């Protein structure tokens, strides 16, 4: 297997982008990534695109070819493949790109992610997102996506000493980080009170425990590490790429409050990267809901089960803490254009490891990690990166 490096990254701003179409979004992100790598489009050998549900959000399928076409590459006939794993679509697209380069099949590969979510009514998007869980045996009976994570929260709070305020601290911290990220959907700081007084969505989760509906796209370019310096002075090496799956329904899991796929993917990633938890300078985790960040910190092995709430309240996961979590603002504040999220996480980690993260820079960051979850934990992708 060849070593792989990220040589270019690009991301649109995230938000309710009424003026931008699906095509506008991915073309913008792709162009930014190419510019970053000082690469012209005809050098691209292949593309992988993470997208959850263009078929339902904009009634468009066949996204791989569409993106290649609007990227101006139709006449180059490059292989372009859509990858779908609900909210983990981006993470899996990135992994496919890494595998393509590592295998020696391709050299310069784009991994992109895109979702255009605001062209449908909010009620409709809630329903579409339920498709990330089991439509027949969860969605059919009235489960919503926040409802499923709320049941994780209920189970967790029943078994461990997590307070409602500690849970709110996740959102407060992520908004603080988002306020320092120019691409974030929400760039305002909030207080615990903001969270506790927000609309109830699914008990105990309130509006400010939930990631928003977002439009956005992100793209990164990977290449063999040995060629990376042709394109950039700051290549970021992919130390590990791991993926795991679990039952599609939440109710069939071994443990409601543990995402076993996160546990396994993290173990595989740490083994592959040959690094330890204390070596990780920052981690972007999949905080689709506040409780998801609590579970992620534990499932990835940064602390024992039941301790992440206190860790968060004590500031350990803050920008100046021992394990900064979601420096981008996470899904909560940066936004969650479903298929783009996994690629945006890579975008954030690469910026941090290059020292280009501005007001949210973790000083001296060398090793970073991403954690992207599909559904309630049926798919997880974990990647580890190092500045070289």
């Amino acid at each position, binding site marked *: 297997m060849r070593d792989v490096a990220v040589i270019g990254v690009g991301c649109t701003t995230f938000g309710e982008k009424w003026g931008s179409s699906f095509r506008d979004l991915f073309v913008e992100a792709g162009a930014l990534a190419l510019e970053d790598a000082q690469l012209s489009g005809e050098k691209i050998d292949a593309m992988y695109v993470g997208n959850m549900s263009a078929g339902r959000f904009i009634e468009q399928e066949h996204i791989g070819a569409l993106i290649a076409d609007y990227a101006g590459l139709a006449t180059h006939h490059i292989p372009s493949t859509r990858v779908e794993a609900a909210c983990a679509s981006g993470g899996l697209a990135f992994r496919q790109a890494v595998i393509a380069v590592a295998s020696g099949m391709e050299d310069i590969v784009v991994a992109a992610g895109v979702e255009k979510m605001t062209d449908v009514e909010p009620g409709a998007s809630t329903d579409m997102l339920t498709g990330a869980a089991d439509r027949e045996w969860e969605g059919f009976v*009235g489960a919503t996506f926040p409802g499923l994570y709320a049941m994780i929260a209920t189970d967790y709070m029943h078994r461990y000493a997590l307070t409602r305020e500690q849970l709110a601290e996740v959102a407060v911290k992520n908004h603080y980080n988002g306020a320092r990220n120019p691409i974030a959907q929400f760039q305002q700081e909030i207080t615990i009170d903001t969270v506790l007084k927000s609309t109830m969505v699914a008990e105990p989760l309130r509006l400010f425990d939930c990631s928003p509906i977002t439009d956005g796209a992100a793209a990164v370019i990977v290449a063999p590490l040995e060629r990376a310096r042709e394109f950039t002075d700051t290549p970021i090496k992919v130390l590990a790429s791991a993926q795991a799956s679990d039952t599609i329904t939440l109710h069939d899991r071994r443990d409601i409050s543990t995402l076993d796929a996160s546990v396994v993917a993290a173990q595989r990633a740490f083994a592959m990267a040959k690094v330890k938890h204390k070596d990780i300078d920052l981690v972007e985790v999949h905080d689709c809901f506040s409780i998801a960040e609590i579970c992620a910190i534990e499932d990835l092995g940064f602390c024992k089960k039941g301790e992440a709430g206190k860790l968060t309240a004590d500031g350990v996961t803050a920008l100046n803490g021992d394990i900064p979590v979601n420096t981008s603002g996470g899904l909560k504040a940066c936004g969650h254009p479903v298929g783009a999220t996994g690629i945006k996480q890579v975008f954030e980690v690469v910026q941090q490891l290059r020292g280009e993260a501005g007001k949210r820079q973790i000083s001296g960051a060398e090793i970073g990690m991403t954690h992207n979850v599909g559904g309630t934990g049926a798919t997880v992708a974990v990647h580890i990166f190092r500045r070289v």
Partner: protein
Amino acid sequence: MSVARFWRKIPQRYNMLGTKCETCGRHFFPPRSFCPDCRRSGKITDYKFAGTGTVVTYTVIHTASEQFEHLTPYVLAIVQLNEGPRMTAQVVCRPDEIKIGMKVKRVFRRIAADGESGVIHYGTKFVPVE
């Protein structure tokens, strides 16, 4: 949901018909035709669940998708059936009544409808057992 898609699951949704692996004794609801433990040596037969169980975890849904908006706030739970498998279902009780460990039994209820003139979906909800 199309008529055929709903109709073909009527035995499961109305009567909690699942399956059981005769080789290892594990029960499945919704039914599986392949035992994940015994794999090819498993022998799957139909099994009708008694419909009694215990609440494992729950939530009260305040923001629902369109089909369920008229029910809010409603109680949703994961119920562990006495035979072992777990399922997600609504519990018909007041939001302040629901508790982890609550004993519940199945009832046949209207779940949702496809608009004003579409198919009405019936299925399983649970009620507390005194």
